[in-house]
């Protein structure tokens, strides 16, 4: 597993450095429009997904995926190593996006109030909401990875790129038909949820629960991927 993590981060290093630079620039524009809450959520979601697809694409370059299996590393270690790499990238993205948002708010706090855009006013960006929104977006991205990773491990990036959108559309369509949006809004379930989130530290409670639930799904996805990867031929 260590071999996978080392090789993944060696391959990602230059991309990660570029991503950090891009995120800094993007955050300046986004925060003006969406505030620190939206910025943190967007960047927290963007980085892990970009890492996953970069790694999957690099696997298929020059037969790296095949060559890697000639190293003393089992297929299960390849899969679990890849999940670990993506999880580490996700945690780093989570911390980075929070740090970026709080740093942005700190800088805004030093400026005269008249200069600070309304979207970045402290009242619009409570810390609990920033953490909750970031956890929520990271959770959504991890659910996407829970679906995408087994397909990528089984079929490779090229084939999976055709299959993943199909699966996502089916899942979304299933969710839409299962959860009747009109019913949810009409009966005030959504507004109740928003009100609950705005109460006390419920954003943090929701964030913790979301991440814990997603982590369980992520681990289950890793075992499914390991099973699928065993049968793949190179």
């Amino acid at each position, binding site marked *: 597993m*260590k*071999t996978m*993590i*080392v*090789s993944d981060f*060696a*391959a*990602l*290093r*230059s*991309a990660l450095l570029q991503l950090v630079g891009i995120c800094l620039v993007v955050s300046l524009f986004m925060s003006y429009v969406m505030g620190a809450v939206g910025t943190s959520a967007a960047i927290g979601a963007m980085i892990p997904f970009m890492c996953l697809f970069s790694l999957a694409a*690099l696997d298929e*370059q*020059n*037969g*790296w995926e*095949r*060559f*890697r*299996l*000639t*190293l*003393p*590393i*089992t*297929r*299960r270690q390849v899969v679990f190593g890849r999940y670990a790499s993506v999880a580490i990238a996700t945690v780093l993205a989570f911390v980075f996006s929070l740090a970026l948002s709080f740093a942005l708010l700190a800088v805004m706090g030093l400026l005269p109030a008249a200069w600070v855009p309304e979207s970045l006013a402290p009242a619009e960006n409570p810390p609990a909401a920033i953490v909750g929104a970031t956890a929520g977006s990271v959770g959504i991205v991890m659910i996407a990875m829970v679906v995408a990773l087994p397909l990528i491990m089984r079929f490779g990036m090229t084939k999976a790129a055709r299959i993943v959108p199909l699966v996502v559309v089916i899942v979304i369509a299933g969710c839409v038909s299962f959860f009747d949006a009109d019913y949810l809004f009409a009966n005030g379930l959504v507004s109740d949820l928003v009100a609950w989130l705005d109460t006390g530290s419920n954003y943090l409670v929701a964030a913790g629960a979301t991440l814990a639930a997603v982590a369980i799904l992520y681990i289950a996805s890793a075992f499914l991927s390991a099973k699928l990867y*065993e049968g793949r*031929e*190179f």
Partner: protein
Amino acid sequence: MTNLIDIENLGKRYDDFALAGVNLAVEPGCVVGFIGSNGAGKTTTLKAALGLIAPDEGTVRLFGQAVTPGSSALDDLKSRIGVVLDTCAFPSTCRVGDAGLIGRAAYATWDASHFSRLLSTFGLSPKKKVSELSRGMGMKLTLAFALAHHPELLVLDEATAGLDPIARDEVLDILRDFVAEGDRGILMSTHITSDLEKIADEIVCVDNGAIVFTSPKDVITDEAGVARCRAAEVETLLASGVVAPGAAHVMRHDYGTDVLVPDRFAVARAFPDLVVDKATIEDYMTLTLKGESR
């Protein structure tokens, strides 16, 4: 002494191709050249040898132990092997030095100073990006990676492809040094048969999924020959009894007929006026695969 690789009766079926009855062995101290046309089954055989694919029939043994794809026991076996496939496989975003980090994580026996020496010998800067390497430099990086953990067996698939003649000679020197210790061996698949003439001990040829011949290299390059005949001389030669029935391979071309004979000295004695050249591995393979067996 236990063979480094033992492949017995290997079979693997795909929709459009089948490998069948492949036997191949690499003894310690030996370099085995594995030749054949494109799509003949070389890479499939190497993949099975490395446990990358599960054979449908037959057995593969590495260092005397049966290979079971996906098993953790295979990891121990793979740690004793250095592999060079037909491309530089490291991710293009990595730097040359990153291969050392990967090697250190992967192999308990990784020798960082040996890797640095090899990079220096090959003129590779650790800071250079893999994407900036030429094909030849990429192959050198892969070879340095394969050698830096002191493997007992090297499996090379077109390892010298893309290298200039001087670099190829350097690589062959390194491979000679590697195998000189006696207990190590090399399985080398290549289309550059002149490299095998310089280094191989045994030649195995595969065609259309089956082994066509297995022969000591010296039998091919020292004993066998190609008689350059006019049309009328072919039948005389074949009827003379100097060549056993079925042992000659005849191929006609625009300017005459080439006859592959197993003993060029015997033919030269019996037909002093006939030109009988030494056979190269390429001659031997081409005439065996394409010539008419007589």
